[in-house]
């Protein structure tokens, strides 16, 4: 066919020359650097867009804050009462420390949509993910970046609400330095939680559904992640196993710091698990995408 084609007015026009030529092939390291910087810029933008979407629906933020306050106040009340019944403390946590523990562990978990695994699984099973595979960047990378953007906003709400609640109910944090360390730990916990969600949800590439993965993950985080209770409450062998698992990085680590334990090594543990979970999620998505391409949806 000729390059000249009639336009909608019936006249003839040549295809318009491209004003920004496609980048020419460059050396491998330069190309890799350019790709990395491009990916970082895209990730930042995906996070910003996601946060803006949440701001555009402020009722969602109000719901997060209200639900978080309700759950935290019930659990904090239960643990405070239990501590007072035990003579003022349980496994080394005072009544006030338990309040700070619960508002932090709940905040870390509530900052991430509770059914995120199920949502990702549905996107995989329904073929929505295929649309994203038609883009020249990592599917899982963009998804994680987007989720981090809105989760940081939700985390901000939880930190403000939780700190206010804990100050009123339990007074200032037991150790201020440890509480300050809990802030970066919370951020790491939320990011690790999002990455773990994607790793678990990737099962849907094989199972076509992630409901069971969501159920399992949620229960593991509730108990072995220390969301509902300090891990020291568990029998000693279970406690040791729980502390060695990644679930502790998504809830227990920041809560342990906020409850007055100056143990900065938990930040390193979180960074380590974040790296491991990131590699696992990336590999699982890569394998899942390959399976989708070979097998079809």
């Amino acid at each position, binding site marked *: 066919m000729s390059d000249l084609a009639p336009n909608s007015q019936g006249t003839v026009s040549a295809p318009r020359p491209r004003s920004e030529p496609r*980048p020419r092939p460059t050396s491998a390291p330069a190309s890799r650097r350019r790709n990395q910087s491009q990916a970082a810029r*895209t990730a930042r933008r995906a996070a910003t867009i996601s946060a803006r979407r949440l701001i555009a629906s402020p009722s969602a933020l109000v719901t997060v804050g209200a639900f978080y306050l309700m759950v935290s106040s019930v659990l904090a009340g239960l643990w405070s009462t239990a501590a007072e019944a035990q003579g003022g403390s349980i496994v080394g946590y005072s009544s006030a420390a338990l309040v700070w523990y619960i508002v932090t562990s709940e905040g870390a978990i509530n900052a991430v949509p509770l059914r995120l695994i199920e949502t990702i699984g549905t996107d995989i099973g329904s073929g929505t993910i*295929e649309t994203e595979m038609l883009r*020249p960047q990592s599917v899982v990378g*963009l998804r994680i970046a987007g989720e981090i953007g809105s989760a940081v906003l939700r985390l901000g709400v939880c930190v403000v609400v939780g700190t206010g609640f804990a100050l009123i109910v339990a007074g200032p944090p037991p150790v201020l330095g440890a509480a300050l360390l809990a802030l970066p730990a919370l951020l790491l916990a939320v990011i690790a939680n999002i990455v773990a969600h994607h790793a678990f949800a990737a099962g849907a590439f094989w199972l076509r559904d992630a409901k069971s993965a969501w159920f399992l993950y949620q229960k593991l985080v509730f108990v072995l992640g220390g969301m509902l209770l300090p891990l020291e409450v568990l029998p000693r062998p279970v406690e040791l196993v729980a502390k060695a698992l990644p679930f502790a990085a998504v809830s227990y680590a920041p809560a342990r710091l906020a409850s007055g334990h100056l143990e900065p090594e938990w930040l390193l543990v979180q960074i380590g698990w974040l790296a491991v979970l990131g590699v696992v999620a990336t590999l699982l998505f890569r394998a899942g995408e390959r399976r989708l391409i*070979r097998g079809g949806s």
Partner: protein
Amino acid sequence: MTEAIVADGLSRTFVTGPRRRRTTHDAVRKVSFTVERGERLAFIGPNGAGKSTSIKMLTGILHPTDGSALVLGLEPWTRRRQLAQQIGVLFGQRSQLWTELAPRASFRLLGSIFGLSDERVTARVGELGQVLEASELFDQPVRTLSLGQRMRCELTAAMLHEPELLFLDEPTIGLDLLGKEVFRTLLVRLNADLGTTVFLTSHDVADIEHVAERAIVVNHGSIIYDAPVTAMRRDLLAVKRVEVHFALDPLDGGASGSALDALGTSISSGVGVKATVSESGALQLDVDTLLRPIGEVIDTVLRAAPAPVADLSVVDPPLEQVIGEIYRRPAPESA
């Protein structure tokens, strides 16, 4: 290389069911065709004919079980990300836009994903806004747009990174008549003004006539017709259906119905018209426009109408009828 797409014996078989009771389904069977750069091709067929499966293979998100394909010189399923940079894809039932935000915000992220600078995205959005007459829509939240307006924004998103080849999978589905007409015009304009190759799947016969220069018809996974639309119009789309509803009096004891039958018989006595009266009392005239001008038939109906005309429409034959016609006729010369 002048070909945008070269498909050679492309096949895809799906295996389903538990191991002992596995069944196979040939979604696409040995499909071979080429698409020239700058061409507008309609790839049409009924539901389940293999259109979407073919698009998935050609865009690299599905591996064929047999055959080969090159899209813009790349094997799609092994060079998916590289190919993604050069093609645009629009699925009629899937959105690329975030509903809570204005399309412009989505464009900025999509531009970044495809490696465009912010300045380039701004310029490109301005340019596409003009071509697609959509600039005023870009700052309204997507959820407030009508489907037709949203599809124009989706088209902008798909064209943002200046793809050489645009795949559209059932893009007019769900649009009303006016929306379809506007969308078809815009596709032709995109092709003419920007030189974009258009690969369109649809099960709407009108999409072929208004958008494509060439049509490939698929049925049960195989190509059954491949010809320029001018030839197709002559061979298969010459027959149009004129449907006339009259404001008949239901209490006249059947006199109006008899008059309608008489009118149908009278019109069908000429060449190129077959008349029937539907159960709802409408007069249906299948007019072969190569033998008899459609205006003349309508004039005759209006002159001899037994009652005032309540409604009149001229429609293309449904796709099933076109496919039936293809099977009845000798195979046309391929393009």
